[in-house]
């Protein structure tokens, strides 16, 4: 913006305040314009294909119908209908239990594996490849695999139990075991992604810091707690938020494996929404439940940001 010659530089000092402000405004406009150019390619499809349908969905939650036929405004009618539906309260509970179990399990395992892969680099590509493979499996396949694994007659789990002398388990016939199967299936599926993610985050941490700590006498776990974890914080925040959002929306595995059974013990929120919308044609109630899901996730995400977010000032 400045001309760069000495005469120009001295001239600038004699700019009036108004000129100065205008120049500043022009600079900021140019800067913002460039920034908008960066975000534009994303925002066009985003607005068209995410924002518009989202607001449409929210509006639909206050109506009956609206997709196949014309919408009929019912205000809070849908909300009242679903609040008295025991399947919904059950679904909220099941989803919460599932999410807690799944997130704790997958994060622990992924962090452990990432630490190992970070430390022992030889042959790590083979392990990375192996862990990626479940990610490639479509839901139909995951359902098939776990149906086979939990099968009463020839499922691997029951074969092992028999070999160890225990009774066989009717896994998909028991509420807690069925939910546990969903947890295991989703953890098995997501482990590769989270391991890769934590590995990339660990590799982001400069080795010198850890070396310095080691030289200062810090042992392995102390190094992990005092150096690694704080530096991982922004990545951890992302991980927790994404994990909450993804796991509260668990659907694929429920759909192919249990369809909410047995006796609605694996009915999750999105499964409830799906049934209402596509099996019963109750679109209003389905969208009301969807908005409820959105509010729940919003609340949990805000809590995560508050707990794990901007504490940089304390650290620096």
């Amino acid at each position: 913006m400045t001309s760069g010659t000495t005469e120009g530089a001295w001239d600038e000092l004699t700019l009036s305040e108004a000129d100065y402000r205008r120049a500043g405004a022009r600079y900021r406009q140019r800067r913002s314009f460039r920034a908008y150019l960066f975000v534009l390619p994303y925002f066009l499809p985003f607005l068209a294909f995410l924002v518009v349908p989202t607001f449409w969905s929210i509006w639909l939650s206050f109506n009956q119908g609206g997709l196949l036929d014309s919408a009929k405004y019912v205000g809070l009618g849908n909300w009242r209908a679903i609040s008295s539906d025991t399947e919904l309260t059950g679904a909220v509970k099941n989803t919460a239990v599932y999410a807690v179990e799944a997130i704790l399990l997958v994060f622990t395992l992924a962090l452990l594996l990432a630490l190992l892969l970070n430390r022992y680099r030889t042959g790590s590509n083979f392990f990375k490849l192996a862990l990626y493979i479940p990610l490639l499996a479509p839901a139909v396949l995951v359902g098939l695999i776990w149906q086979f694994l939990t099968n009463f007659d020839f499922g691997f789990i029951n074969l092992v139990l028999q070999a160890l002398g225990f009774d066989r388990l009717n896994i998909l016939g028991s509420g807690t075991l069925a939910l546990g199967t969903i947890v295991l299936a989703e953890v098995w599926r997501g482990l590769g992604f989270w391991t890769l993610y934590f590995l990339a985050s660990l590799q982001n941490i400069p080795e010198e810091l850890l070396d310095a700590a080691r030289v200062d006498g810090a042992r392995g776990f102390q190094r992990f707690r005092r150096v690694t974890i704080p530096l991982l914080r922004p990545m951890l925040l992302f991980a927790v938020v994404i994990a909450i959002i993804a796991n509260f929306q668990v659907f694929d595995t429920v759909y192919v494996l249990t369809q909410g059974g047995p006796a609605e013990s694996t009915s999750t929120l999105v499964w409830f929404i799906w049934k209402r919308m596509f099996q019963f044609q109750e679109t209003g109630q389905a969208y009301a439940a969807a908005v409820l899901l959105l509010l729940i996730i919003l609340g949990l995400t805000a809590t995560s940001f508050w707990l794990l977010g901007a504490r940089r000032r304390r650290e620096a």
Partner: protein
Amino acid sequence: MADPGLTVEAAADTSPHASEYSRAARRNRFFRLGKGLAAYIVLAVFAVIAIGPFLYLLSPSFRKSYELFSYPPQWIPKTFYTGNFATILHETSYLRWGLNTAIFTVSVTLITLVIDTLAGYAFARLRFPGKTVLFALVLATLMIPTAVLIAPLYIMISHLPGWTHSGVNTFPGMILPMVASPLGVFMMRQFISTLPEALVEAARLDGASEWQIFRKIVLPLMKPAIVVLGIFTFMFQWVNFLWPLVITTTDDMKTLTVGVASLQGQFVTNWGVISAAAVMTMVPVIIIFLVFQRWFVQASMAGALKQ
């Protein structure tokens, strides 16, 4: 990093505590070997857990389906029956489905990578009015389950005029709605914000334009993140079921997941055929994987080398 074992041994010869030092060195080496072995055992266990179930599926794909429930259960088939694979290749549009899926997945991944990185950089390092509001909006849309958006999206796409070539049963119609992934923007923003500001500031002071900074400085450093996002998007879209299901009404536009699902008859679930189809669904991806494996290795090494 200096190897403590060596220094100890170097000192061992001259020190009065020579024997203690060499014993300590041996214990040290033994511990490290032990830890290494334990680590590899753990990794191997998880690798088996990850791949094992797929090998489990190989067996039914080589049998006729009613053999599965014999008692006591036999896992190794007595005769290898390749009819299931033949059925899939001859009686279904499997190859066409594979091609559709490849086009769909690759296109979505490439477009997503480009626009997400650009937007992520803007959110992380550029200043413009409305930044926080827009980012909050991006995050908020992450929390809507896709199942809910499918119906409105379909209605929108199906009403697009013909000259756009982006209606139902077209590739653009299938690809474009999947491109705006809030997850990608979020991830890129987080990664970019861990890069040191000093680097970018220095370049700015030197008069580099934003685009040059982005291309020459930020982008090379983003490799691990781009790899992660690329893999994730690719996987996610490969197994995407709901959206391709509703946006394709003709058999020749279906993707693999949708096509394989249509193999399940109402009453005759031919488990042999389904297992074979599932196995075949994984093969193309594994091949692509192995082809690009070298690049994955180098990208991870880039992350390691910068240390």
